[in-house]
């Protein structure tokens, strides 16, 4: 072999290596800020992981979802600003709602978006759309969405339901003076010890917002705390640190009338032993964790949730719980039990604490403390008998195709990226892996189109 030929071979091999290296650098840097990752449930993609946990999936490729929820990760080499997720799937037609979400924060909150809602798809109501907002009317009264929004204050609140559309919360409670006269003593006295993070609404009619929180650490060796955030009309107006050593006083004088949201952000290592307040409305949003105490006594709660989910990790907390007129038997630890409420609001009576109670509405520890300032939201148990209008960002689609392809867009700037991965969730409310019903969602291909800053924009914004 001539020296010339050896040189040609060497140049060829090193050029090939150079091209591979350039390709790898290009894929990692994504200089133009756009890249598409495709995954197949049966494939072995590094970028789109397989569905987890496997006890909620079945099939050869673990791509048949039999339990809610399931998760997958998108591993990326760099950060992006937005993601367009296209999912190809087939359903057994027994579950009305399918949602896709992205991990929003370290507390494992997910920002969900609708993929399919059969309740809206199958409604034979008149539908209007304007700028991606859909208005469904039982009897057509408004000619366009903006006219409906302009006249919304004239429509009784219980006649309107929302689905992935935020209408402003109620600003005030009508006849609050009468309400105060009829309500009993301070509802905060009946709040038992709570574990971990929670959020609640409180109402103030001009005056002082006053709360005293008393916290305790379960494990003193862990150096964990957290914060208390106060929101008014979705704006953060005050933030305080949590300390387990002394009571935290949250006082805000001369505050305007309206609903305030107070969020206690902390880990499960922190127990709120006591909440003291003169406020009459204290309505916990979606979830409360009752801490395990030596002598809990009977706990009575009120909720406007249409379905209640209860779970415990304490063998001592296994019990029969009365929800409305029905009994829910909690027979196993680490298993979620659910019960549909017959009427809203419904009472929940527990003999033991140490359980986590969740639902799609609000919870309070006395009937007088419950007031929901939000509009009714559509969920899988939605009763639309009294509803005349539904406003949503979901496009109703009555497709009869066996395999459906839907696209959802997420803002990744406000999402949580952990160890180079964005977390995604597929939620199918009511899909249980261990029930007798043969319902499922079979996942085909997933395509994720990512968009972010270009290399040029990154260089321009670089600061020394």
């Amino acid at each position, binding site marked *: *072999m001539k020296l010339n030929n050896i040189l040609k071979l060497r140049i060829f091999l090193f050029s*090939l*290596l150079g091209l591979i*290296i350039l390709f790898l650098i290009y894929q990692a840097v994504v200089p133009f800020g756009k890249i598409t990752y495709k995954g197949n449930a049966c494939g072995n993609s590094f970028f789109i992981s397989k569905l987890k946990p496997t006890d909620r999936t079945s099939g050869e490729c673990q791509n048949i979802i039999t339990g809610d929820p399931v998760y997958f990760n998108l591993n990326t080499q760099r950060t992006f600003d937005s993601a367009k997720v296209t999912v190809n799937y087939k359903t057994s037609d027994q579950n009305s709602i399918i949602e896709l979400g992205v991990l929003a924060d370290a507390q494992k909150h997910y920002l969900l978006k609708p993929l399919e809602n059969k309740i809206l798809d199958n409604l034979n109501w008149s539908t209007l759309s304007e700028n991606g907002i859909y208005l469904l009317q039982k009897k057509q009264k408004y000619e366009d969405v903006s006219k409906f929004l302009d006249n919304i204050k004239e429509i009784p609140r219980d006649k309107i339901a929302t689905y992935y559309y935020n209408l402003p919360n109620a600003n005030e409670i009508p006849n609050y003076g009468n309400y105060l006269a009829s309500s009993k003593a301070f509802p905060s006295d009946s709040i038992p010890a709570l574990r971990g993070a929670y959020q609640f609404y409180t109402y103030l009619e001009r005056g002082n917002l006053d709360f005293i929180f008393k916290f305790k650490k379960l494990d003193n060796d862990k150096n964990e705390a957290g914060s208390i955030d106060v929101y008014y009309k979705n704006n953060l107006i005050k933030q305080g640190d949590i300390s387990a050593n002394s009571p935290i006083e949250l006082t805000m004088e001369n505050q305007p009338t309206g609903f305030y949201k107070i969020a206690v952000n902390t880990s499960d290592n922190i127990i709120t032993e006591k909440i003291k307040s003169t406020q009459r409305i204290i309505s916990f949003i979606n979830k409360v964790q009752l801490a395990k105490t030596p002598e809990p006594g009977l706990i009575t709660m009120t909720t406007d949730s249409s379905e209640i989910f209860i779970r415990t990790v304490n063998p001592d907390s296994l019990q029969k719980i009365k929800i409305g007129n029905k009994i829910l038997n909690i027979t196993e630890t680490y298993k979620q039990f659910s019960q549909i409420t017959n009427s809203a609001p419904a009472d929940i009576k527990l003999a033991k604490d140490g359980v986590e109670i969740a639902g799609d509405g609000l919870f309070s520890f006395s009937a007088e403390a419950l007031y929901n300032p939000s509009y009714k939201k559509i969920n899988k148990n939605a009763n639309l008998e009294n509803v005349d209008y539904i406003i949503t960002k979901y496009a109703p689609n009555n497709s009869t195709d066996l395999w459906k392809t839907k696209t959802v867009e997420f803002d990744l700037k406000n999402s949580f990226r952990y160890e180079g991965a964005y977390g995604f969730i597929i939620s199918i409310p009511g899909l249980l892996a261990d029930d007798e019903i043969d319902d499922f969602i079979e996942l085909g291909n997933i395509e994720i189109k990512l968009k972010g800053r270009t290399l040029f924009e990154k260089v321009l914004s670089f600061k020394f």
Partner: protein
Amino acid sequence: MTQIIYLITREIFYVLLVALIVFIAMEMLKPNMVQAYFSLNFVLILWLASGMVLLVSRKL
């Protein structure tokens, strides 16, 4: 023929050695930059195999 195999294998051995060093450096710089597409074990096995072929063909 043996000489040709020897010369070709030698070139492959060198390029795989450089590839392995560069890929390891890239992985150290940004994890999963290479492994997202192929395993470094695969490159290592190829390099070792080419080294063995090189040794055998050199003796012949």
